[in-house]
């Protein structure tokens, strides 16, 4: 079943074309990876899908409802949520309060057992009373995910979930995310190819606002154009 269907998305900031006729489909249960150089339009794409930006052209359907013109809070209620490239939690509030805030207007909130279980799973239970701003980056990343999961999203868009993490933490995050795949559909923007290789069922490559490749990771990451324009010889 098609969960997310974006068609011919075009987004322009003044003279700068950030996205040009980008098509993208994601079926429920499929983990989609999005890669591309800095400035290729990945975050802009997520911003368009989640209602933070209105594209000049294009259509977005999620779960058979049109998302264009809807505000981020309405899109969240429809079951589509996202995290940010730079970690964002309510840093002056405690972890517990952060979770409660995520629950306050959740359309399909987890019950309290579910919240406790998810908190335990993300290893944040011992931090419930800590101020979120005092957590380590890795803990904050997990809190971000927890705040989304208590809302039981159908699709979770993660914008560079391992950005700034150490290699051990990256390893642990990949393991967490592979378990997470069983809980909700994931869309992952990443620069770390290890994450994409291990998690993604399919990869989309953006270059200067255009989609240049779309397919299984092994195929896409070996694609001559992708190697030339983005990966370079080192990672390939």
């Amino acid at each position, binding site marked *: 079943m098609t969960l997310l269907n974006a068609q011919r998305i075009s987004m322009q900031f003044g003279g700068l074309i950030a996205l040009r006729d980008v098509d993208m489909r994601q079926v429920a249960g499929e983990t989609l990876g999005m890669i591309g150089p800095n400035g290729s339009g990945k975050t802009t794409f997520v911003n368009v899908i989640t209602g933070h930006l209105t594209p000049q052209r294009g259509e977005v359907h999620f779960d058979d409802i049109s998302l264009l013109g809807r505000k981020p809070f309405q899109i969240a209620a429809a079951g589509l949520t996202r995290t940010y490239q730079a970690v*964002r939690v*309510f*840093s002056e*509030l405690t972890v517990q309060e952060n979770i409660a*805030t*995520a629950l306050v207007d959740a359309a399909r909130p987890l019950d309290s057992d579910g919240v406790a279980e998810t908190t335990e799973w993300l290893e944040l239970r011992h931090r419930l009373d800590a101020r979120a*701003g005092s957590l380590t980056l890795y803990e904050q990343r997990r809190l971000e995910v927890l705040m989304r999961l208590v809302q039981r999203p159908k699709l979770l868009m993660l914008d560079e979930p391992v950005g700034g993490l150490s290699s051990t933490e990256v390893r642990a995050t990949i393991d967490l995310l592979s378990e997470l795949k069983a809980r909700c559909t994931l869309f992952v923007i990443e620069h770390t190819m290890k994450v994409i290789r291990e998690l993604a069922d399919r990869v989309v490559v953006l270059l200067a606002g255009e989609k240049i490749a779309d397919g299984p990771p092994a195929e896409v990451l070996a694609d001559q154009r992708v190697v030339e324009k983005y990966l370079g010889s080192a990672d390939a």
Partner: protein
Amino acid sequence: MTGLMRRWLAHAIFALAAFATPLLLSGNRYFAFIAGITFFSVLWATGMNLLYGYTGLMPLMFGGIAGISAYVTIGLSANGWSFWLAMLVGSVAASLVGIVLGLPALRLRGFYFTLCSLVIQTVITLAFVYFVNLTNGDVGISHIPLPELPGGRQLAGTAYELVLATIAVIGVVVLTVIVESSFGRRLTAIREDDGLAETLGINVTRQKLAAFFVASLFASVGGALYAPYVGFISPRSFDVLLSLNIWVMVAFGGRGTIWGPVIGAVILAPVPFVLQDYYTIKDVVYGLLIIGVVVLLPGGIVGGVKRKGRADAPAAVAKQAAPVR
């Protein structure tokens, strides 16, 4: 002690003190009047706290909204309306205006909204001066009659101060209930990061406007009761200085806490009366106080005490070292 009792203990003590004060001071009209003005300050500081402390918006047109309510209430009363009905209509009308004046907050944050609200306040003050037919302009309205009570008696003296005490107590209770409700949680989320709040499903626009409505109700109920209590209003009564004075009380006591602004109001509201004999340096003292608060007590009195409490706990040392945003 049951949880319920503990939860409301501070409120009970505050209510007792609030009701006892006018009774104790009933022998001295001057002191009783200072107490009355302090009750207005508690109410207003509590209302501004909802916006400034809990929603993160500093509304410098707060005084103007109180003024709109005062003028509407007095205008309607002068046309034969019962004071209480006029006050109801005036307060709701001013609060609806408050929502409209809060619209810029949907686009502007922090300092930029504050600047915008300053301009709005200035325009309101100019409007009070300009619409002479309704407000009697710069001259102001004097000899405002006291509100009538059922049975033809007038609300005056200690009874008036008891009404003000009641309103102040209700204000603090209402804020407490709001802060502990999901509405309060949404507002705090908006204060911390409104973009993240929206991503988590919170309708930021609606919540901000609701906050403006409720805070404006605090302003306007106070404004309506203020006019007959003092007996005289002019555009000066509700200018930016009123907004700033209330802001200082909130900041001085500790914004974003229930009791901080109450303490700020109780300490600062009597200051102008105390300093009356030193009117040449009054503004200097007040100015120094504002600077002192901003520099020395960024979290206010209550905020400072809380921070100290946290710093004493070993786990909190790392927090203190973290850079302040």
